[in-house]
């Protein structure tokens, strides 16, 4: 796997069948020009990369507070229609939108002058005229751009005495199983339409009509939304118009603790932020990473926290006794397992490719010795049989390999399980809830280690499961994965595991203490 990652900054191409005009075309900027041009923002002068817009310069240089915006999003083409980001540029007759105006050498910009603040108040005034007072029942409250900007800039009183616009058929409209639309709340920034047009390229959203009764609809009303990145719509919708059904009415955003982690649903390894309260996860949202996932993540990964919050997940050491599973302590369980292992004629340790690099190293180098038996250690994927098969499922993020660390496990020196088939008497199978299950015989003695649900245990191909050693999920532990692009990503625990599971290293410590 090459580590030369080239991030292409793509120049907009003109596809002549169908021109997209939402991107103002700047003159070809030469990024290597010396000396770099300078722009003055709020009294301070900054050097900037030619081709950047005023807003991009302000963001790169972290010029105090963010310039407010609704329709601008760094991952989508520029629209310049919400008029919230307007700034005062000296020598320009009108206020200019900072999202679309290229910074020029010698330009002097004021982002908080009186004229600008008045304009922002004006925009807020207009957007709030038809916006329903839904905050008490709206999921977006607490993370809503409209609320935040109104607090900063908005009018404290509205003089709108007319009847608010109501979209009768679209007040609570399911655009798909995942997304609900409340059109009354929409501020017509059209980020969602630009997303489905230019990012996912599925064209499944459309804004019909014109003027004050523009309405968002699924392009084909019979099919609804069909793309695999619908959750992203709810990330960037600045108001509560598009909300995720998976999160609807579950938790108020201000109660959520936010910690970073890595998604383990496929080999892309999108960076995620885990939102939890009292160590119960309510949702994932993507974190921007230029090299890995950009601004987005797929729906499969987004809803994958449900696997770890599954009430059927095994979180206590289970030992089979007289045909039934019983919860017990780690010492008892491991002592029993050691007995089975030492008595066996051949033992195999299969590591699922969802193990972290540290776990893979531990399992290969230390664990056989701790059990006091030599074992054949190999890895198993279950989705692809060789790395060459790990291909992109679409032009964005999804990969065929549904485990996060195939490359990282292989890197530790492990070989793939031959033919995907387990041949020894006793098998210890370690996986973190993602890797597939290899072929087994009905009577092989199996010890399961890691993240498992009780249904998986009961329906295991071999009917002879002796024990389940519970392990920690990705979001509960520290570790690192090597993703499909060859990037090693380290992560820390995002929540504290509340069951009785232990990390692989802690289990190894218990084993050591038993010797």
């Amino acid at each position, binding site marked *: 796997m090459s580590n030369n990652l080239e991030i292409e900054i793509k120049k907009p191409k003109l596809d002549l069948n169908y021109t997209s005009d939402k991107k103002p075309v700047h003159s070809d900027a030469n990024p290597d020009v010396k000396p770099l041009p300078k722009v003055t923002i709020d009294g301070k002068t900054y050097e900037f990369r030619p081709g950047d817009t005023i807003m991009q310069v302000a963001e790169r240089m972290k010029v105090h507070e963010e310039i407010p915006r609704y329709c601008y999003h760094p991952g989508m083409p520029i629209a310049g229609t919400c008029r919230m980001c307007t700034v005062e540029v000296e020598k320009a007759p009108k206020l200019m939108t900072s999202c679309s105006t290229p910074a020029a050498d010698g330009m002097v910009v004021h982002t908080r002058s009186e004229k600008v603040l008045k304009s922002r108040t004006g925009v807020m005034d207009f957007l709030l005229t038809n916006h329903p007072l839904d905050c008490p029942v709206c999921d977006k409250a607490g993370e809503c751009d409209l609320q935040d900007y109104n607090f900063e800039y908005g009018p404290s009183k509205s003089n709108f005495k007319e009847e608010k616009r109501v979209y009768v058929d679209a007040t609570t409209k399911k655009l798909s199983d995942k997304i609900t639309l409340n059109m009354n709340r929409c501020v017509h920034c059209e980020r969602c339409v630009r997303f489905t047009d230019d990012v996912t390229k599925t064209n499944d959203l459309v*804004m019909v009509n014109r003027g004050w009764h523009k309405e968002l609809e699924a392009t084909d009303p019979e099919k609804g939304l069909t793309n695999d990145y619908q959750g992203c719509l709810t990330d960037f919708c600045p108001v509560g118009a598009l909300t995720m059904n998976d999160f609807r009415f579950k938790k108020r955003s201000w109660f959520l603790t936010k910690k970073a982690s890595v998604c383990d649903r496929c080999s892309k390894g999108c960076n995620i932020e885990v939102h939890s309260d009292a160590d119960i996860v309510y949702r994932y949202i993507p974190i921007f990473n230029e090299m890995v996932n950009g601004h987005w993540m797929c729906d499969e990964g987004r809803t994958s926290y449900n696997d770890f919050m599954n009430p059927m997940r095994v979180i206590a050491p289970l030992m089979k006794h007289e045909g039934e599973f019983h919860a017990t302590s780690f010492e008892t369980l491991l002592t029993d397992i050691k007995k089975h292992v030492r008595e066996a004629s051949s033992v195999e340790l299969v590591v699922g490719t969802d193990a972290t690099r540290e776990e893979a190293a531990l399992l290969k180098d230390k664990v056989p010795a701790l059990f006091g038996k030599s074992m054949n250690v190999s890895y198993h994927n279950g989705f692809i049989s060789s790395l060459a098969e790990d291909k992109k499922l679409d032009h964005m993020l999804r990969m065929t390999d549904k485990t996060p660390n195939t490359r990282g496990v292989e890197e530790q020196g492990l070989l793939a399980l031959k033919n995907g088939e387990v041949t020894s008497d006793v098998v210890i199978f370690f996986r973190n809830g993602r890797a597939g299950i290899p072929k087994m015989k009905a009577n092989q003695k199996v010890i399961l280690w890691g993240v498992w649900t009780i249904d998986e245990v009961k329906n295991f191909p071999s009917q002879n499961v002796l024990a389940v050693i519970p392990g920690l999920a990705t979001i509960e532990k520290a570790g690192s994965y090597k993703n499909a692009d060859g990037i090693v990503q380290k992560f820390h625990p995002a929540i504290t595991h509340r069951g009785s599971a232990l990390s692989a290293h802690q289990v190894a410590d218990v084993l050591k203490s038993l010797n």
Partner: protein
Amino acid sequence: MALSEKIKKTINGIRHQFPTEQALLIPLLHEIQNDHGWVSLDAMKEAGEFLNLPLSKVREVASFYTMFKLHPQGKVDVQICTNISCWLNGADKLVSCAEKRLGVHAGQTTKDSCFTLTQVECLASCGTAPAIMMNEDYYENVTEAQLVELINQAEKDVATNKTVGKSTRQDGVWP
């Protein structure tokens, strides 16, 4: 089949005049509107396929412009301008008169699907206000009596299957 062979032939005949296929969308929708009296979702799907455009682009355009109707209309669209110059010359009275004669409010279609009454914006005929359009034809300096007569004549023509209001259209000649 919303797109007849004739429409396809007409559009293919003007393809060479435009640098992109998307530019043909508005002429195509005009032809569909003329053929069927309205643009249905199926027609939009066929239009998108014919021009290699995603359905969302077709829907955006069809719903943006006033002349593309998204619901079935009557055979004769009686369009009365109610903008400033026509209003100053009594357009409101014309609308009331038409409403009484047709038995529907502005924006609705008669039960026999013969007429649709719509209020439209300035037709650029202000010197001869009030002005109306019946389908494609302009009528200017219209009095209430003339309006009733026009409607009566149109009704007779529809009953005998004559095309109403397209007096300058020639079959197969573009535009």
